[in-house]
């Protein structure tokens, strides 16, 4: 009973915040709604006995990734969303399409029955961090090492992409220096002409 009450409370919080993400015009409001969704999902992970995943969800997702988003929104000084003719067409086609997709998914998943499983109660299954560590560093060691390479490439890609052009010698800097004196040489010619 407690499980059902907690599930419905936090499921409705997650869905309401996700709808709010769609309705808000300003990206910072959408980002804060997404943090609420992630917090509600962390509680649902705790209900499912996955305490490590719940903690990582809060630390990595709601902490690190969303800080990155909010930081970029503030850095770019993102304003209200602009409406364009394309957005009217997207609304016209997108809303019925997504409604149909929700209906189909809910219809399929609501009828899902898994053999020999009646349902899940709190405490039926508990994933300790020790078990996760043992599985991750023994059976899934190769995928774990591959993700470390992925993260390394991600760091390098982010640094290369976000680096300013004038930070070092690039192809464009000689052009700028070559083009810069040209207006000065033209201006005296115009003055003499005038």
């Amino acid at each position, binding site marked *: 009973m407690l499980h059902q009450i907690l599930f419905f409370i936090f499921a409705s919080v997650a869905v309401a915040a996700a709808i709010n993400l769609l309705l808000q015009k300003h990206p910072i409001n959408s980002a804060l709604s997404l943090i609420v*969704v992630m917090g509600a999902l962390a509680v649902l992970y705790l209900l499912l006995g996955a305490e490590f995943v719940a903690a*990582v969800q809060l630390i990595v997702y709601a902490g690190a*990734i969303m800080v990155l988003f909010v930081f970029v929104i503030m850095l770019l000084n993102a304003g209200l969303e602009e409406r364009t003719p394309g957005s009217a067409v997207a609304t016209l086609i997108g*809303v019925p399409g997504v409604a149909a997709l*929700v209906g189909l998914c809910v219809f399929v998943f609501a009828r899902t029955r898994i053999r020999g499983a009646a349902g899940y109660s709190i405490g039926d299954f508990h994933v300790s961090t020790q078990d996760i560590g043992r599985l991750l560093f023994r059976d899934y060691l190769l995928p774990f090492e591959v993700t470390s390479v992925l993260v390394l490439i991600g760091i390098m890609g982010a640094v290369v*992409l976000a680096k300013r052009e004038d930070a070092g010698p690039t192809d464009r800097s000689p052009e700028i220096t070559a083009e810069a004196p040209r207006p000065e040489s033209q201006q005296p010619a115009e003055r003499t002409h005038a």
Partner: protein
Amino acid sequence: MVPISYYLVLSAILFCLGVAGFLLKRNIITIFMSIELMLNAVNLSFVAFSAELHALSGNIFVFFVMVVAAAEAAVGLAIIIEVFRTRDTLNVDKVNLLKL
């Protein structure tokens, strides 16, 4: 006691809301956040199946999805910064050419 189908339905609703955000929003940062919402919805179904089937692997896969999402967010936001520097806009309708 909550059947696993409830968790799957919630996951499906969140995923479809993410799809809706991806299709309807015009701001490139909000579109990116919709992708994160879809990844979160998939994570929820991983954890729900993990609890229902008493299999630990679901939790491990959530971990990998989070690593990929973190790397994707870092690179994607760097690309967004670069797009904003060259175009001075975040509206995806105005970013429809690879060439300036």
